[in-house]
């Protein structure tokens, strides 16, 4: 039995609105299935499930806004017995029971005074767990769920010793074969009334928050280089002549692939700045900025861009761009990017000075490919030139590293057949 929770679809997401369930109790699901639509400031996201099993219970009704981490459904993992509903009382743990049964309690011998109406549970915010910082840290390390720990500190605060006791009890409980399912949390999640569906304004606010944070916290440095695209474009033209119109490649996939390759050469730019240190990411997920016609932008992640062929990258773009414009992205696509690529060449912009999307540490800007005079080997010619820029976080890397990246990007674009 496990809980399917409201996912965090970005570092700035605090709550999401469950829009629609794609499954109902009894349905079988497997890892990767889209089981719900969730609306966030970034749009409606299709949320995937990460395990195989059967939907046991739905805990949150559509059009309910709940904080990140709130249990949305209970999934019975395959092989586990169907849980008796008493084991996981719905009303106790979720906000789905919007209309609690308000029944005046009549006690024997007392005049039947009408008790004051009980406020619906949505009005009561969930009480924050009182736990010391050390207790929280220790609980995370030991895998102890603080909601199941009895605090003995002031006002019932959970302290280190309480966590240690709970961990010891957990260890002891693991030994018997029929391990009891840990009791569900008693505290109902705080329910937030869905905000007015002013999606545009919310997206603007989300972008504002991220960009303001970026400019406030990230000491950007910028590097730019001009890249001769003649070899790449010649190769692309020859390649496209062999293909049907549907299968043709756009120059941008070459650029995305070259960026991914360059990140393989200079991995320091592929990661996050969190807790005052650079946390390198092994997988290269390129966030590709896509502007929306009505304003705003969405940055879906192209997963493992370095491992995908040009055809696969093209397929990803064909798949993802219409979905972005329709506001239907998958949860893993909006949260995973390890670097961002902004291509404003379509608009005729020649040089892009980007603002890094925190906690990423770099943004690659691509301008329009324009014909320009180009001197090489003592000869002047006209070449298609692309200006590529790097905006990078100076806390994480220095200009030398950034320069190596642009140099590597150029090198890969000079050998398009190898991309």
């Amino acid at each position, binding site marked *: 039995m496990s809980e399917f929770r409201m996912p965090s679809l970005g570092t700035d997401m605090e709550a999401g609105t469950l829009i629609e369930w794609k499954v109902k109790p009894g349905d079988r699901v497997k890892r990767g299935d889209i089981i719900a639509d969730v609306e966030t400031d970034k749009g409606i996201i299709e949320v995937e499930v990460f395990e195989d099993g059967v939907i046991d219970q739905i805990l949150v009704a559509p059009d309910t806004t709940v904080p990140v981490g709130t249990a949305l459904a209970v999934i019975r993992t395959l092989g586990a017995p169907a849980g008796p509903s008493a084991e996981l009382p719905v009303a106790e743990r979720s906000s789905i029971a919007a209309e609690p049964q308000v029944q005046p309690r009549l006690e024997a011998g007392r005049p039947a005074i009408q008790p004051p109406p009980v406020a619906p549970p949505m009005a009561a915010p969930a009480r924050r767990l009182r736990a*010391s*910082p*050390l*207790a*929280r*840290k220790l609980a995370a390390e030991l895998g102890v769920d603080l909601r199941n720990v009895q605090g*003995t*500190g*002031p006002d019932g*605060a959970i*302290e*280190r*010793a309480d966590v240690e006791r709970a961990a010891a009890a957990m260890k002891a409980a693991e030994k018997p074969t029929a391990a009891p399912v840990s009791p569900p949390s008693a505290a109902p999640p705080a329910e937030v009334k869905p905000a007015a569906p002013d999606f545009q304004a919310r997206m603007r606010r989300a972008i504002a928050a991220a960009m303001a944070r970026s400019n406030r916290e990230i000491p950007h440095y910028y590097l730019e280089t001009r890249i001769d695209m003649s070899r790449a474009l010649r190769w692309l033209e020859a390649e496209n002549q062999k293909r049907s119109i549907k299968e043709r490649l756009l120059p941008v996939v070459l650029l995305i692939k070259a960026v991914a390759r360059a990140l393989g050469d200079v991995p320091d730019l592929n990661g996050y700045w969190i807790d005052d240190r650079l946390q390198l990411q092994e997988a290269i997920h390129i966030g590709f900025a896509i502007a929306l016609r009505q304003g705003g932008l969405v940055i879906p992640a192209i997963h493992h861009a370095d491992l995908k062929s040009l055809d696969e990258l093209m397929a990803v773009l064909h798949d993802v761009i219409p979905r972005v414009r329709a506001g239907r992205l998958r949860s893993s696509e909006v949260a995973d990017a390890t670097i961002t690529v902004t291509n404003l060449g379509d608009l005729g912009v020649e040089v892009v000075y980007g603002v890094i999307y925190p906690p990423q540490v770099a943004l690659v800007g691509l301008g329009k490919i324009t014909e320009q005079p180009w001197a090489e080997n003592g000869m002047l010619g006209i070449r298609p030139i692309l200006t590529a820029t790097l905006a990078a976080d100076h806390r994480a890397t220095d200009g030398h590293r950034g320069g190596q990246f642009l140099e590597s990007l150029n090198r890969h674009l000079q050998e398009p057949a190898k991309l």
Partner: protein
Amino acid sequence: MSDGTAMVKLTYREAMREAIREAMQRDERVFLMGEDVGRYGGCFAVSKGLLQEFGPERIRDTPLSESTFVGAGIGAAMGGMRPIVEIMTVNFSLLAADQILNNAATILHMSGGQFNIPLVIRMATGGGRQVAAQHSHCLEGWYAHIPGLKVVTPATIEDARGMLWTALEDPDPVLIFENVTLYGMAGELAADAGPTDIDCARVHRSGRDVTIITYSASLFKALEAAETLAADGIDVEVIDLRTLRPLDEATFLASVAKTHRAVIVDEGWRSGSIAAEISARIMEGAFFDLDCPVERICSAEVPMPYAKHLEQAALPQAETIVATVKRMVRSHV
């Protein structure tokens, strides 16, 4: 103390006098000036006998004008001397606050790094002697606010003997705060005891359950409390800060990381105190090691009462420390 070292018995006052005497002997540029330091032998008898030994050129009585003689000390320091200026008590240092803050602490900066001020100012501080509000202030935490100064608070006889020379060696102004209740404290010191550092806090007593961070006279209240608590099975670590500026935060952060609980005992008033600063540093540097909120035991925020029982009630006391620590560790020892 190591075996084979001859020990001498002396008071804090005598240790301080020995420190001045040694400095005068070692360096001709050193001289002492202040109110009544010469013929009277110092208000707290620290400089008794030094006028006879070193003469009126080097042991100088000054007029009752703190601003004037601190300013003169600054000028002498700029001119190449190594003055020790005694301000009778911290209460009167406020008359020289302009010289201390605007000149001593600032001239190095204002002169673009041309003039260091190798000045040492000694002053008595603290309450507990029934001399009423205007003579009982404990303001070393105030001075610790000021960049450009070093603020040291010798609590032990060893530090009373050792900190002065190191302070004189420092190229910039150092303020030495001597708690008035310590002058009569007697103890043993190695006969060959010499200078001590003025940058490090010292772990006086090692323990695992809670860290008491303190300085100056409160150190002994903390140690007394630690003894009492040990009888109840509570193992207390006691840190003497020794220097309030710059703060040796590495030492107390390491201790808090070990014990997970911190109490600060500070004779200053609580609001805006050095205790507040230490608490903030713990929050910044050891938040995830804390198992309960940092506690502070400071003086009551009142003008110091004259009546003995009220004065004692206003000052931090060992019993308060014991009660606070017990509340913090209550169920988890």
